[in-house]
């Protein structure tokens, strides 16, 4: 179990420098989007999924835990935020907080159950829990079953930011994304992140060194679930609806797909992957039934030709850490 590749395990100062430069470039690119004529709603949608994929990547890429139920955090936060905004009439910032807290609570409960097992069993438990939740949401009246919560008001953030203005909404979503991204970035490069990586590489060894690995895994799971929920709460403002699609297992699969296409265990990989997958859904929509075929082909090519994912390959080629 000593297969360590130079592009995944960070080597101090140079790594952080590479990553900071890449982060700077990404931030600037995202900041100028509204001036380029690119359709902002597409980018917003992609940003929400990018944050979701990053949260997922924190767990699999750095903790070695493959969760196949991350859609439950996305969907739960979406439903709770949507309900809070539409029925309780809460302001947007509180709506986001309530939704994210709901996802955090869910992550504590599911995490306590799931982290007791590893590998495929962990994936199966998370899948089972998310399916359980899916059927609960199918039946619960407040989710309106298969119709979903529709026409969720966007409102005024902090009382003065008009979220129904696409440009304002874009910067709010971008700020949310960057906040979540930086938190993940910080986590990975902290002592906590180092312990996580050691658990991924060799858990018995980490235990023998005196780490309570279950605590670390649970904390990582909660953090990941909460951030996934935060992405779900942000998405409510973009899509203005919360529906069963977001809790369905295919959504969990899509998250895995995004992360794999972008690059597992790279910081920027999930962001790129999310943009690629969402762009395919959006811009290939005119091809009708070919969308799913094209997605499949892209996935197969990805797995066969560049296993490290887009960002992973680039990083490997230029010997960078991204």
């Amino acid at each position: 179990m000593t297969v360590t590749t130079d592009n995944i395990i960070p080597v101090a100062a140079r790594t952080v420098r590479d990553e900071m430069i890449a982060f700077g470039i990404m931030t600037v690119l995202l900041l100028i989007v509204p001036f380029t004529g690119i359709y902002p709603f597409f980018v917003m949608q992609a940003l929400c999924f990018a944050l979701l994929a990053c949260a997922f990547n924190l767990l699999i890429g750095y903790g070695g835990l493959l969760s196949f139920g991350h859609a439950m955090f996305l969907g739960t936060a979406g439903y709770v935020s949507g309900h809070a905004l539409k029925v309780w009439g809460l302001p947007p910032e509180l709506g986001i907080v309530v939704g994210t807290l709901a996802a955090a609570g869910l992550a504590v409960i599911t995490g306590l159950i799931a982290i007791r097992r590893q590998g495929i069993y962990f994936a199966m438990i998370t899948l089972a829990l998310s399916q359980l939740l899916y059927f609960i949401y199918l039946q619960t009246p407040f989710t309106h079953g298969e119709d979903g919560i529709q026409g969720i008001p966007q409102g005024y953030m902090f009382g003065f930011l008009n979220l129904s203005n696409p440009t304002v909404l874009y910067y709010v979503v971008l700020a949310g994304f960057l906040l979540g991204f930086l938190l993940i970035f910080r986590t990975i490069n902290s002592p906590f992140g180092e312990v996580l990586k050691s658990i991924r590489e060799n858990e018995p060894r980490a235990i023998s060194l005196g780490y309570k690995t279950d605590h670390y895994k649970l904390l990582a799971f909660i953090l990941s679930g909460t951030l996934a929920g935060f992405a779900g709460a942000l998405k409510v403002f973009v899509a203005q609806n919360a529906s069963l699609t977001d809790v369905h297992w295919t959504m969990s699969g899509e998250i895995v797909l995004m992360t794999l296409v972008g690059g597992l265990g790279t910081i920027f990989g999930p962001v790129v992957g999310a943009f690629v997958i969402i762009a395919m859904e959006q811009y290939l929509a005119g091809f009708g039934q070919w969308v799913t075929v094209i997605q499949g082909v892209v996935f197969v090519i990805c797995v066969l030709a560049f296993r490290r994912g887009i960002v992973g390959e680039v990083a490997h080629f230029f010997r960078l850490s991204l």
Partner: protein
Amino acid sequence: MKSRISALLLGTVLAFTAANFAFAQDKTVKVGALSDQSGLYSDLGGPGSTLAAQMAVEDSGLTGKGWKIDVISADHLNKPDVGANIARQWFDVDKVDIIVDVPNSGVALAVSNIVKEKNGIFIDSGAGTSDLTNAQCTPNTIHWTYDTYMLAHGTGSALTKNGGDTWFFLTADYAFGAALERDTTTAVLAAGGKVLGGIKHPLNTSDFSSFLLQAQASKAKVVGLANAGGDTTNAIKQAAEFGLTQGGQKMAALLLFISDVHALGLNTAQGLNFTETFYWDMNDQTRAFSKRFQERMKNHTMPTMVHAGVYSSLLHYFKALEALGGNPHDGAKVVAKMKEMPTDDPLFGKGSIEPNGRKIHPAYLFEVKTPSESKGPWDYYKLLATIPADEAFTPLDKSTCSLLKK
């Protein structure tokens, strides 16, 4: 550089504004057919709806009168947020005027909200939810072909009056199934029938044997399938194996399309009862349209009622545009005009659009023929009863649409 770009932009905007003033009667229209192109609804909507939209453009004769009409299509993948995003982008970037089809109730409701926000037009043909003309109605939405109320009431009351006066329900255990069962039960009771019982099954069930045995044991004359899609076809296939219809019971599917019957085959589907608002073999006009449609369809299928709805609704839309003398690019205004004009088209006949956006026309209770009764390909239905337009849909005084309250 930037100032040059802004100057250029300003120039373009000015040129466009000038052009708009010069030609006050804009005669360009863009139609967006938003449907499920790859999933379970692709046969009843999908590519067929795009074709139906194109045929409507050609048959309207407007292109010959100097109009420029484009049809574009997209796949909403049965995801409400994908559907909503496409709709938003169509209005913002592609300048689409009207969105048609949109099967899948969740997606349809999401699109309806966006269309209202953008003051576009939405004519739904593919989705069933009667919420579109009740709690969630908008001044920009028209619901054309069918809805769950009409299916439940049509099948429930017409079948009961035809002698099927005792019922047993197989209901999918979610809101849609419960709504279908509730609406049908009301209709059955009102028509003097009795409901002997019912059983709920989980969504996406593959094994219906125990449910079907209970239905058989209930000795009800009619077994109502209050479910949809794969559940309905699975239940029908397994009922054929259990010989439910041979045992003298009738099967009533509450949501079924001709594409499903075609896929099941007559051997399995024979004796099924259900309600639709369109069948290709109704009269000369429907036959003529359907033959043309079939020839141009890639897999040579007959149009479903959803396809027919897309075609006929667009014809009416074009008539309204012609009456307005140009495209005002004002959704609510055009929809108001469409509601004001009586509808008349080759497929659904004469009808009208109610203030809540509900298009009304007659509905038909059909029974699937036995293989020996069928004279050729696609000869599937026999007509059992016609439900007149004014009885088929939700009465206006029972509609909860906010547009009706003054």
